[in-house]
Structure formats: structure tokens, C-alpha cells
């Protein structure tokens, strides 16, 4: 008895008894554990064997099982398709039309017909199952075909995955950094700003404290260490995306850099060459910095320290922190009111106080 694949109708050469479990599956690219013989088997596509019966019209329970399995795989198969490797096109046998068993077709509610379906028909069927196929396999066309190897931007300007062609679900509010369907990392899209990456509104105050957890979540999906087995292109994407996320995390974490970034998004770039000569501010800063220098040099800190718990802070330090906080609040307010002149001034002051605090911390 020749065992035949129920879908592709290819006989399994060399095996005459489907007794072993290994004989139950047709060798496709994905089903690794198989029957070794026969290139024909390899190129079969998604064929499944059922035990025993080879009668074409058999409504055997096994064929039901097979069909059910196929359906299940078809609809959710996208999640398990390792499409990241360069597509080895599985050419349908051009010399042999794949025949769908009537039982299967019935289950799939296709019109039963006596003739074997054409490749176009099979393609349509597979489309219904949700499994995309490359256009090379179906030169006659047949629905959408994915474009492999290029970043996608359709006419409607919705990005699609370069790998599987799926577009991001419209329900998802997250930026499209990783394809939900095939889990491949997308190239960096510079128009997605850091706030969008972390799902935050473009505001100065952070709504919640879960920057770190979001950061770790993203890194779990697109860290370069996770894509060692994938293509060079994807590894490059992962490296860039990961670096971007790291930058985003560090910039959003600190208030001063966050403020600067917010202004940058609004179009205000910091002019490095700009000098100011506001006598009051500069005199104050000079005094503070001199005080810090002298205090540590002469070890006069003992006289001006105050204890807070186990950590000793100098009153100057606390004062500076308070001032920094005040200017930080003022920036927040100015930004909300779109008063960018004030915002810039607040940032300048914050910068100065931050530097002074840094100096103190260094000396401590």
C-alpha cells in the first residue's frame, strides 16, 4: 500500500506502511521530523498524511482531524511562520496539480468540484487561510503578495512589515517597532518620537513611573541579542532600534534632558554659541560655585552641614535642589502655556543649578 498525502496527493516513496508516527506528516519546510526520502516530499508544501485510509472519498475521522489541524494552522499559523529567513520559494509542482481532497474541501466549505483546483485556486484557498505566498509560486497572481526584502510604504502611507507584509493592527496604540504578526524588527522610523515610544503624552511631567518597565518590555522584543539567528538586515534594524530606545529612556528619565527634548520637538534648538551676561544670575552662580570650592577645600562643611537621616546634606545643597525644583515647575507651566521664551529661560537656569549640584555631589 502506498501511503499518500491527503492534500498534495503525493505518494510517499519507500514507505509502505504508515504505522510509525513519522510517516504521518508530509515533509514540508516546517515539519522537521520527517520522512527523509524523496525530494518530492520536501517540495510538497503543506501536505498532511492521515493514517491508514487512502481512499479518496473517505470521510474518515482522521481526515477531519487533519483538516481541523490545517485550519487551525492556517488561521493562526502566521505566528509560527519563521519567515525571517530568505524565502526559499516552495514551488508548487508545476507538473502536478495539487489536489484537494473533497473531504477537506467540504470542511473548508469550498465548492466541491470534480476538477483539481488550479494553482490560482489553491492560492486563493491559502489566502483564506491567511497564509501569504510569494508571487513566484503563483505567477498567475492570486490576491495580495508580499514584497520581500523592502521596507513597505503603501500609497496610503501606512507602514507595513517588510517581512510578512502585515500592517500594524489599528487597535494597537504602540508604535510600529516590531511586527505583531511575524515578530520581526522594523527599521527605525524617525518620525516616531521618544514620547510615542513610551506611550506618553508630550508633556513635561511624567504621568506615571513605569518608564523602566516599558523600557525593559521593548528591549525584550528587539534587543540585538535576540536576533542572532536572523538576517543581517534584521540584525541591523534591531541594533538601531535598541540604541534609539536606550537614548529615549535616558533622555526622558532626567527632567532637564526631557525639557530640552520637548523644546527640540517644538523646533527650538539650543544655540551653543550663545552667551548671556545677565549679571544677577551669573553673580549668583559664581557665588555658589565659589562657595562649593571653598567649602570642600577648607573642610568647612562640618560647620554648615545638617543631617537628614544617615545622609548628610549641606543646606546649600538643599537650597539648590529647591531652586532647581522651582525652575522645573516654572518650565512645566511655561511649556503648557506655550510660552517658549520663559521656557528657554527656565531651562537655562535649570542647567546652571544642575551643574552646581553636580559639583557638590562630585566633591562629597
Amino acid at each position, binding site marked *: 500500500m502506498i501511503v499518500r498525502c491527503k492534500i498534495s496527493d503525493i505518494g510517499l516513496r519507500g514507505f509502505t506502511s504508515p504505522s510509525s508516527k513519522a510517516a504521518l506528516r508530509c515533509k514540508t519546510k516546517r515539519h522537521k521530523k520527517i520522512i527523509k526520502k524523496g525530494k518530492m516530499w520536501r517540495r510538497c508544501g503543506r501536505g498532511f498524511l492521515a493514517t491508514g485510509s487512502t481512499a479518496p472519498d473517505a470521510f474518515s475521522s482522521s481526515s477531519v482531524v487533519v483538516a481541523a489541524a490545517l485550519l487551525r494552522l492556517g488561521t493562526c499559523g502566521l505566528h509560527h511562520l519563521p519567515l525571517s529567513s530568505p524565502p526559499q520559494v516552495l514551488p508548487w509542482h508545476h507538473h502536478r496539480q495539487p489536489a484537494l481532497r473533497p473531504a477537506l474541501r467540504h470542511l473548508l466549505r469550498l465548492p466541491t468540484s470534480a476538477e483539481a483546483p488550479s494553482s490560482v485556486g489553491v492560492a486563493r484557498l491559502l489566502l483564506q487561510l491567511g497564509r501569504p505566498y510569494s508571487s513566484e509560486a503563483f505567477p498567475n497572481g492570486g490576491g495580495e503578495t508580499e514584497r520581500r526584502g523592502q521596507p513597505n510604504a503603501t500609497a496610503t502611507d501606512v507602514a507595513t512589515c517588510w517581512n510578512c507584509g502585515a500592517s500594524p493592527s489599528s487597535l494597537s496604540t504602540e508604535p510600529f517597532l516590531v511586527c505583531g504578526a511575524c515578530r520581526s524588527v522594523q527599521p527605525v522610523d524617525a518620525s516616531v518620537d521618544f514620547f510615542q515610544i513610551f506611550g506618553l503624552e508630550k508633556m513635561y511631567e511624567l504621568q506615571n513611573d513605569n518608564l523602566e518597565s516599558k523600557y525593559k518590555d521593548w528591549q525584550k522584543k528587539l534587543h540585538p541579542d535576540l536576533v542572532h539567528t536572523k538576517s543581517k538586515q534584521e540584525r541591523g534594524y534591531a541594533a538601531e532600534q535598541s540604541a534609539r530606545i536606550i537614548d529615549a529612556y535616558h533622555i526622558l528619565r532626567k527632567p532637564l534632558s526631557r525639557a530640552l527634548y520637548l523644546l527640540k520637538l517644538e523646533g527650538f534648538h539650543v544655540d551653543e*554659541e550663545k*552667551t*548671556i*551676561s545677565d549679571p544677577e544670575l*551669573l*553673580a549668583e*552662580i559664581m557665588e555658589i560655585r565659589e562657595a562649593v570650592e571653598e567649602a570642600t577645600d577648607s573642610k568647612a562643611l562640618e560647620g554648615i552641614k545638617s543631617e537628614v537621616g544617615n545622609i548628610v546634606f549641606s543646606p546649600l545643597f538643599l537650597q539648590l535642589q529647591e531652586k532647581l525644583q522651582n525652575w522645573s515647575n516654572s518650565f512645566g507651566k511655561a511649556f503648557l502655556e506655550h510660552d517658549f521664551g520663559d521656557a528657554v529661560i527656565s531651562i537655562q537656569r535649570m*542647567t546652571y543649578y*544642575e551643574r552646581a549640584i553636580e559639583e557638590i555631589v562630585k566633591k562629597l
Partner: protein
Amino acid sequence: MLPRLVRRGAVAAGLLRPGSGAPAAVGARAYHERVVDHYNNPRNVGSFDKSDPTVGTGLVGAPACGDVMKLQIKVDDNTGKIVDACFKTFGCGSAIASSSVATEWVKGKQMEEVLSIKNTEIAKHLSLPPVKLHCSMLAEDAIKAAVKDYEIKKAKLVASSEAVSIEKAADAA
């Protein structure tokens, strides 16, 4: 080089912050030796008395990096020549070196002459990398501010002394 950052007992000259100029250990991206020299052997660090009428004080800051620079010149009233200068800078090594060079160049020159010192000359002298050019800009602005401050003081003095002499004349009359 850089681990010798905190110099106890040294005259206040600010800390050497690498910024984008890499540490001196790295070959091509090191601080220029002149910059390091100005940092290790600070010249003209100090302060003059602000209220002294012969002293002009220039106080400028670069808000982008949080630097402050104070440059003071002592001018001889009669000749208009700058006899002494000192500075105090809090910022990166390039800023400190720029202001140090500025004080050196300013000494012994006329006030008008000093106004023509350009930041590009300072930068060239110290071989500042492009990212640190704003430090030399700061030094040039400090010089100009110091001269301006002296002029303003002088003008005020003249104005007040005129007022005094007018009063005296009025009293006498």
C-alpha cells in the same frame, strides 16, 4: 591626566570636564598640550576688587553648557593700557584655558587693541576642536564685557565728578 581632577588647595579654577573632548589618554582626541598646561599651571587666576574704579569686570555665561566666566582687567587711567588681568572660570577645560589665554594676551595692550582679539585666534592657539569653539567665543565676549564695564564705570565717574564740581561751583557762587 584626568584623574587628577580634584586638586585640593589649588586656586579655584573649576573642574576639568571632558565634555566631548575625550580624555587625554586617547591619542588623536586628547586635549591639546597647551590646554593641559593652562589647566595644570593656572596663570592669572584670582579676583580684583570690584568696586575699584580702575577695574573692569566682565561676567559672561554659556547657558547651553552651564559655564560661567569672570574676567577682570586693571586699567591705567592715564594711558588706557591694561596693566593686569585675572580670571575665574567654572566650566570645562577648554573654557578655563580660553580665559587663561585671554588674560595673558590682554596684559600690556591698549583697550581698543584688545577689542580686536578674535575667538578664532584663541581657538587656533589652543587647537580647540569644533565642538569647543563656543568656549573661545565665551572668552572673547568676556574681554569685551570687561572693557565695556570699565568704560561704563569711567563714564559714571566722570559724570559724577562733573556733577560734584557743578555743585561746588553752585555753592561757591
